[in-house]
């Protein structure tokens, strides 16, 4: 495989039942990007940002889907869920802000670093969220 002018599209369902399997989609994308010859640094940025979005879809919503679009210019990851939505986006973006439950915290989540990490590791980040409808996070990393 090689990065050609052709657009590569990938789709994954993010299952919320097997909590421990969360991260499978991110791991699969990481492998694909490495195989395509994308630089390790770029691969890591995509992998971290996508993992955070994937985990959020599992922890805070009831799972969702991931759609990835790879072109020679950029990697775009769209994670969407039909969860409760984010009431206060400004607060949610603050490092340390978390509504994670005690049981989720016991597993090592809930540092309130997920959204800040996504911002830090991507070139562009958009969050489209609506109470009671769901959240769609778009992450773009330029190659």
């Amino acid at each position, binding site marked *: 495989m090689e990065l050609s002018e052709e657009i590569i599209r990938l789709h994954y369902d993010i299952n919320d039942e097997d*909590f*421990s*399997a*969360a*991260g*499978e989609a*991110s*791991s699969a994308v*990481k492998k694909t990007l490495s195989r395509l010859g994308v630089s*390790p640094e770029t691969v*890591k940025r995509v*992998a*971290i940002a996508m*993992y*955070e979005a994937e*985990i959020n879809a599992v922890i805070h919503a009831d799972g969702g889907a991931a759609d990835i679009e790879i072109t020679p210019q950029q990697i775009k990851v769209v994670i969407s869920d039909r969860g409760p939505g984010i009431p206060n986006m400004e607060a949610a973006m603050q490092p340390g802000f978390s509504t994670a439950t005690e049981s989720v915290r016991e*597993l*090592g*989540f*809930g*540092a309130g*670093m*997920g959204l800040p*990490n996504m911002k*830090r*590791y991507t070139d562009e980040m958009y969050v489209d969220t609506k109470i009671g409808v769901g959240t769609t996070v778009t992450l773009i990393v330029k190659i």
Partner: protein
Amino acid sequence: MKAREVAEKLNMIILTGDGDQEVTGLYTCDLLSWVISHASSGDMWVTVMNNLNILAVASLADVACIVLPENVEADEKLLERAQEKEITLIATSRSAANVIAEASKWIESER
């Protein structure tokens, strides 16, 4: 120095993986989204977290290996999945602080 060699020097037990990864640094923290953005590729990551999510974090952050300190147990499921993902998982009775202190002597001595 390879993960296998560091484990040997510190009398730690390799539970899964071949320990063939080069250890270039040390890191310890249990908050997963903190780890994933602050650990460096090649770090030996010491954590008391023993749920399956540490495997995804380890492979996404490209750490060299995971060390479970203070006799933290690895259950069947964790061992099975770590083996599958070819992640080097190490166990020890040492504390996290002790692992870092002792391992740093060997890793630095090589630089």
